[in-house]
């Protein structure tokens, strides 16, 4: 009997194919949006997690604290400098590397070609701390860092763009208003979870960067790479203690720096994705509501069109509930069809985005199941009123209907 009803519903949907498809657009778009967003979101999260686990969970990031917008901060704003780096280097045990980094987006030029790249000033420990390898040539030396020499290493993206398969070593490139000699190239790292090309970078000694590009003596970030097996929690506490002591912060005052380990950063990044997903979820919700109203509308039309049919069915012995079920099933089949189309479209979009952003394609069975159930529910909820209207028809009037 139910199978009979489903077949009947499918036939009715097929008979009005064009009308059905147009009716379903709202549901299709809503479901597709949800599926695409959640799939892309979880792909991004997976990528971020993967990147961070590649970096190693034993990396600490130290940054200057920023005053909060209310201006009620209980600390004196003070940016990081060389002495912060020196004091950490001197007092921290059980660490592999302590490295300072400053960055800026700068235009770089070679011959007639130019591109915008991430220019990073840093020290010799950076390669250990951030896990960079040198694929060609060499890293810079302590002397070069101290002397602020105009040397640099380039990432694979820039190498390919400027030199193709040629030899970049000892070539001079312009970096902003200064220039540097290429002493090496970096191993490739690919894209971050947010689609940022990590190989589009120029690495130069920190002092060189500070003097010639930034024009200040500040350090943006200090990375502390803790030895394997050592406690990151302990290391965070140590770094805080050393920094407070060195900066002479009174016990009643807050830190004017922040120390975070990668797990915290991963959480922060993921929560940004979650917030975005939530917002788009709301948009999708509105779209689904509109889709539901569309279904209600078309079901009302369907019931009116088939008044005579309802009359015949009631006359020959259909119960109210048979008619109710018939139209409910039809509405449900309709919206379920929309849901399935939406899932297919959403996965298609997410697949495209995944390959475009170089993130993993991570379809979730749970969300697909939820989409299926939810679209079926929409059909039942919005189909109920029209179905009830059909079921309550008086058979005599319905039979007389033209």
């Amino acid at each position: 009997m139910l199978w009979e009803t489903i077949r009947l519903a499918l036939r009715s949907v097929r008979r009005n194919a064009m009308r059905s498809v147009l009716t379903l657009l709202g549901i299709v778009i809503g479901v597709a949006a949800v599926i695409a967003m959640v799939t892309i979101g979880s792909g991004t999260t997976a990528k971020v997690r993967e990147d961070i686990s590649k970096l190693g969970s034993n990396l600490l990031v130290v940054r200057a604290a920023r005053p909060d917008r209310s201006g009620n901060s209980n600390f004196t704003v003070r940016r990081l400098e060389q002495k912060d780096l020196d004091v950490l280097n001197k007092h921290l045990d059980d660490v592999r590397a302590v490295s300072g980094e400053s960055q800026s987006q700068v235009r770089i030029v070679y011959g007639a070609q130019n591109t915008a790249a991430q220019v990073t000033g840093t020290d010799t420990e950076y390669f250990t701390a951030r896990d960079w390898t040198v694929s060609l040539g060499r890293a810079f030396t302590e002397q070069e860092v101290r002397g602020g020499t105009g040397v640099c290493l380039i990432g694979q993206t820039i190498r390919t763009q400027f030199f193709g398969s040629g030899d970049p070593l000892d070539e001079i490139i312009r970096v902003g208003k200064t220039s540097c000699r290429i002493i090496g190239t970096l191993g490739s790292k690919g894209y971050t979870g947010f689609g940022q090309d990590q190989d589009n970078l120029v690495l130069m000694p920190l002092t060189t960067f500070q003097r010639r590009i930034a024009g200040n003596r500040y350090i943006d970030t200090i990375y502390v790479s803790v030895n394997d097996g050592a406690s990151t929690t302990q290391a965070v506490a140590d770094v805080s203690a050393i920094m407070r002591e060195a900066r002479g912060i009174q016990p009643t005052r807050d830190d004017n720096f922040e120390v975070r380990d990668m797990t915290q950063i991963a959480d922060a990044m993921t929560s940004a994705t979650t917030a975005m997903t939530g917002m788009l979820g709301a948009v999708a919700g509105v779209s689904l509501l509109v889709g539901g109203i569309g279904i209600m509308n078309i079901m009302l039309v369907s019931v009116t069109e088939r008044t005579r049919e309802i009359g015949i069915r009631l006359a020959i012995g259909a119960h109210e509930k048979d008619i109710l079920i018939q139209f409910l099933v039809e509405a449900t089949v309709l919206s379920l069809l929309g849901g399935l189309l939406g899932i297919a479209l959403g996965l298609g979009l997410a697949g495209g985005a995944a390959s475009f952003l170089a993130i993993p394609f991570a379809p979730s069975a749970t969300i697909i199941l939820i989409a299926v159930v939810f679209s079926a529910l929409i059909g039942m909820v919005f189909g109920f009123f029209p179905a009830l209207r059909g079921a309550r028809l008086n058979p005599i009037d319905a039979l007389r209907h033209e």
Partner: protein
Amino acid sequence: MTDALVTFTDVWKSYGQGEAQVHALAGVDLAIRKGEFVAIMGPSGSGKSTSMNIIGCLDTPTSGRHGFLSVDAGRLDRTQRAVLRNLYIGFVFQGYNLLPRTTAAENVELPLIYRGMPAGERRNAAMQALAQVGLGGREHHTPAELSGGQQQRVAIARAIVTRPTLLVADEPTGNLDTQRSHEIMELLTGLNRDEGLTIAMVTHEGDIASYADRTISFLDGKIASQGYEMESA
């Protein structure tokens, strides 16, 4: 009258309230016996359609008793009447009232679906009913592919597939030419004679009514003639 299938006892059917009240039926008494073929005639507005709706258990009287198979059908609710119709009553309408774009066999199966009969049994019963009305071999035609006479035969097959006790026919030949009309009437008469099917038929054509055992005539919501002259003879 112990073998009465349908009885009306002082049946009234009224619409509206107070001054504007209209009585479609104003105290009707009638009886249709098992196996009888009754024609119901009368000008439009005479109450013949209203009484047919009540006889077919599609409607209930405002007052009075409508007995069907020894139950007081007027006191049944919508669902109970639906069960009664499905089990004991077959309908044939003037406009055939077949489901469009649905094959003859599927149309005939329809009342059995609401009985919850398994698909295989249903199909067999439908084929049998179609053969009985002379439409064997046309099971898979849709109404649009059939002539008016053939469509009415499908409708008759749908009405008898449930092996009903009573067949209610509302102007069954109203849309047909003379020759087709007589063919349909032969078919109905045959069902009445051979199967003992009780038939109540509304018509306004005298020669169609003459196929029936007797004719009940309505006028202004009352019965003008019970048509027992054949018996009294």
